[in-house]
């Protein structure tokens, strides 16, 4: 039965192709100017300013109609997909309760770890609703804004703002600062991109810089488990469980440089990572002595690094799923 309908579909597709080909055949006769010109050899065409990448104007996506549409997308498909694929456990909202209770909650800069494309959807879902409404996401300009359609989707559904990760462009940081001053909260991945090998990367100064510039507190966030679900290089997602841990909002001290503040944010996220995998008191004790296992993984390279990653993942939320699915008893 199935084979039969498959065969039928194939036949239909075949005839459609023939019809299109037949219709297109007369157009072949129309060359330039009906088609784009070809470039002569030896001539270099200057790159035009495309309005894509870091220059994409996302203003339209913050207009009321688009915001409303985004509300529907966020609470509908994104929420559902997040639930199905990542089944998140969200902890630490109580650390934001004081700010959330204010009549006019201040804009925050959320600085999560980054292991997967799912992180953004997960963050949108996990951030308390008072900030979710006016949330913008810093997204890599070279990845999310390289095509018109990709840019439009990113801007509409995630309220993404392109950020150039190669050069710290004034344009993008000014825009973000302006948005924060305007009351928008921001999700920015301080690592600058998804993890290459499953371990974290060093924090770049973006979050700390924006915080110092705007006075908005930075909220360190640790996301556990998305790397195992849809990490870099995976062809299709493996649904699993995740955990999102929010930390206490942080502000730069009076005489603290951006670099030192950035290091402090990284330590805070590291502590949260330890808290997520062990417990609060252990993490705190180790934080006091600087012994939290670093997110960037052990110093050595090669297979031992992967080996250590497997061990670490066993502790986390994603590890639980795999243990439960193991068909044979764990013999140690």
């Amino acid at each position: 039965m199935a084979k039969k309908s498959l065969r039928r579909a194939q036949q239909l597709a075949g005839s459609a192709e023939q019809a299109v080909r037949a219709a297109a055949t007369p157009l072949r006769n129309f060359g330039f100017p009906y088609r784009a010109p070809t470039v002569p050899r030896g001539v270099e065409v200057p790159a035009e300013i495309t309005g894509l990448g870091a220059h994409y104007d996302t203003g339209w996506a913050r207009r009321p109609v688009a915001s409303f549409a985004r509300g529907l997308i966020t609470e509908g498909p994104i929420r559902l997909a997040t639930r199905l694929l990542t089944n998140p456990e969200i902890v630490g909202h109580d650390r934001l309760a004081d700010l959330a209770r204010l009549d006019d909650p201040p804009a925050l800069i959320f600085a999560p770890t980054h292991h997967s494309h799912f992180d953004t959807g997960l963050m949108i879902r996990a951030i308390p609703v008072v900030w979710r409404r006016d949330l913008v996401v810093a997204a890599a300009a070279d990845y999310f804004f390289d095509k018109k359609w990709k840019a439009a989707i990113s801007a509409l559904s995630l309220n993404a703002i392109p950020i150039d990760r190669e050069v710290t462009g004034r344009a993008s940081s000014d825009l973000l600062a302006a948005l924060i001053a305007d009351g928008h909260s921001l999700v920015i991945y301080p690592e600058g991109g998804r993890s290459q090998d499953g371990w974290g990367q060093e924090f770049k100064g973006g979050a700390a810089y924006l915080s110092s510039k705007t006075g908005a507190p930075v909220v360190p966030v640790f996301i556990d488990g998305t790397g195992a679900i849809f990490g870099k290089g995976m062809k299709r997602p493996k649904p699993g469980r995740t955990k999102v841990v929010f930390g206490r909002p942080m502000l730069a001290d009076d005489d603290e440089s951006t670099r030192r503040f950035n290091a402090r944010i990284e330590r805070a996220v590291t502590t949260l990572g330890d808290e997520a995998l062990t417990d609060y008191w252990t993490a705190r004790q180790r934080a006091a002595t600087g012994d939290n296992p670093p997110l960037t993984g052990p110093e050595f390279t090669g297979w031992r690094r992967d080996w250590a990653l497997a061990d670490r993942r066993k502790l986390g939320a994603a590890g639980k799923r795999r243990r439960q699915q193991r068909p044979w008893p764990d013999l140690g």
Partner: protein
Amino acid sequence: MPRPGFVLDVDRSTPPMLFWRGENFSLEKLPADRTRVIYPPEPLPGIDDVDGAIRNALLNPLDMDPLPALLTPGMKLTICFDDASLSLPKMRRPDTRQRIIEAVLELAAEAGVDDVHLIAALGLHRRMHDYELRHVLGDRIFDAFHPRGLLYQHDAEDYDNLSVIGETDEGEVVEISKRVAESDLVVYANINQVAMDGGWKSITTGVASYRCLSYHHNPATLQNTRSLMDRHHSALHHSLWRMGEVLREHGPKIFTVETTLNTDTFPSPFDFLAKREWEWTAKDRATFLATQKSLDRVPVKMRRKIMHSIESPYRMTGVHAGFTPTVHEKTLENVYAQHLVDVEGQTDILTMGIPYICPYNPEGIMNPILVMCMGLGYLFNMYRGKPLVREGGVIIMTHPTYRDFHSVHHPSYIDFFEEVLPDTTDPAVMSEKWEAKYAEDEWYRHLYRTGNAYHGVHPFYAWYWGAHGQQHAGRVIIVGGDAPTVRRLGFTPASTMNDALEIAADVVGRSASITHLHVPSVLVADVK
């Protein structure tokens, strides 16, 4: 700016007054021209940066070194905290205790303190359920300490783990948890919802033994406690302060952190409860009617569930840390700032609505003994100076007073109601004749130590709590209660407020003055 409390004289255009009736409420028209209503002050503004304020208090304590200076590696640190009887109703997460303890733990971690125990200072209250501990302490602390057995609940019957600190001049033996006694530093995380709480009472009841508690939880002391909300005229608090002196001299070093809350008790849609009736908007009236009618129509179990699921949006109004008595004086200032209402003179008849909750039934059932305890123990004691009602006057309470008990939380209450109350309602007699039997019953002891039951002797304490009120009042009338149950409490049942006022007329005459204590929220009448 919140308005202070005030006393309203009821006239013919005064709307009917809100009364609690257990898990529901009613509006009662009170007689004009001889009734006054005491309204509590509106909630004071809270502190915005709570965590900052707590940290500041820990770093700048009163009459003690800053907390970091008291923390050394290798020391024994014990953190005690108030149990589920505070706050009422439970506050929205994060709970103040979680904030305090996290702040303390962070300093302890920085100082390299490894040996930390967390003890719920239950006294003879029931052990908290795990979800309650999570609510009070937050998931982080619970998950870190509970699985390792470092977070546990005080056991006043575990004599192997209790130790005697000393004896007061009046021969009261101070006996507290051994871990607390042997700690290098004890931090107490407190919530002061009413003036009765806090101070030396925290440690000397919270982590004390039954023996130690019986010195002050007895009829003689509580009849001379005038009132529970005024520690300078409370025999109970005098005894506790004597014990505190012993603790100071011979006990561990205690670093007290006390916090006060405002009275922002009921979230929407119940926020009309705290409003003055003539200020109810159309929406408030519609909400009241809808709530009252629908509560009437659902089974009492569901009603209870609905009410107990309320989480209060309290705000913290103050935090002080350091040496216990000094801290407590500051705390009392804050509490009184929120609660005090000046009242001129006493009254013949005091009316009050009894709510669905009292300190001894969080998540449980307000059984008849607790109705007595709440009315005559707590609400009656909401005074400073003189009681609101004159001696020999009448107290009218509204509550369904069903004969219903929580068999897990209150096992000994059932027996108390069935065995002791038919025999006597006199606190002195019952203490003499029955208390020991209940205190020593193996089953109650077992349920208290391993289950979630109040100690066997607790119904006696709940009853003694009302001893002063019982002695003071000429008659107590419960409106809308189950008649046989009300009679067994030694009170008079009445079906309506008018009937109750008629019955009261037999005692205090036809033109007696009436005062209504308008709860919620909490207030303390400063009677001149």
